[in-house]
């Protein structure tokens, strides 16, 4: 019995990511915030698929199990993690190019230099 504790963790991680995106000025910190949002979404899906007392959705040699957790959210989260990795790599690459171009990671500075 885990209760609502995992959902609380999801909320806290989501809040941290949202805070970083809204208030931080460093592009790397904003990227960290986006990654935290991804992590909270993944955790949310996994927790929604949990069934009390369920085992992993794999027929192992350990014998018959009483019940299993939902397999579909796990399958979708698995691909979402790898896609998140690829997109955050793309994000960081763009940040690297921005830093080389402007010499700073501050969003306000970047906006000012462009204008």
């Amino acid at each position: 019995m885990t209760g609502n504790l995992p959902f609380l963790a999801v909320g806290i991680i989501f809040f941290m990511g949202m805070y970083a995106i809204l208030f931080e000025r460093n592009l790397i910190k904003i990227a960290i915030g986006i990654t935290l949002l991804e992590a909270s979404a993944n955790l949310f899906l996994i927790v929604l698929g949990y069934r009390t007392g369920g085992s992993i959705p794999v027929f192992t040699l350990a014998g018959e199990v009483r019940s299993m957790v939902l397999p579909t959210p796990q399958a979708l989260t698995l691909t979402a993690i790898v896609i998140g990795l690829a997109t955050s790599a793309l994000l960081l690459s763009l940040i690297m190019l921005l830093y080389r171009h402007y010499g700073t990671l501050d969003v306000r500075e970047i906006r000012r230099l462009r204008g």
Partner: protein
Amino acid sequence: MSSKPYIFRIASLILCVSLGLMLFRGIAALPVTEKVTGPASHYLARTAGETGARNVVGAILFDYRAFDTLGESTVIFTAVCGIAMLFSRRKFHRSSRGLSFIAKRGIGIMVPFLLMYASVIILFGHLSPGGGFQGGTIFATVTVLLCVVFGSSFESQYFPPRTKDILESGGALLFSGIGLIGLAAGTGFLSNIAAGFPAGTFGSFLSAGSVPILNVAVGMKVGAGLSTIFYSMIKMLDAGHDHREGGGIE
């Protein structure tokens, strides 16, 4: 500074807290249940008979929703293409000399075991937790380790970008080819047992029809793709190091 950012901050805080409160009330209303409903009950009850795979997650990824997986691996492919294109113009490339002798020896001992671990995770993806995505990332980790410890020119000498390119495209072609076999058999794109793939005995290594082949295809795609991403990025870092040593700012 004016008080405008301050007000913005307070308003955002109120928005976040109220959204979180609404979400939490919604979650608290969810019933705690042991019952498995919807498509999941079908998957859990019939996966063994319909696909022959022990791993239900793998069966969903590579049988029931294989077309979905093809689309998702295309997303990775697109990201890899984007990153490789962004850094394609860096011609001046001098690799670092790598870390100390001890680190190099240690990694030299570890790499075969890491490769074996990744292969097992990919090849037994239909029997145990694991599969193409996870094993592919471990393969990419090996090349990342080689890049960091030995320098990126060593890594590109043993795993040339051209090989990774062929591996990634080959994975995509293998995946689509398996799908086309189902189409040719007249049972639909990416169909597994219905298309005539042998189901094998439940729980043995050679079972579950096309699921292990698709695992290998996705492992090739993900491993080569992630390793290309890292190589492209670290190539630029090395180039940046060069510029700083020369005292020039681009």
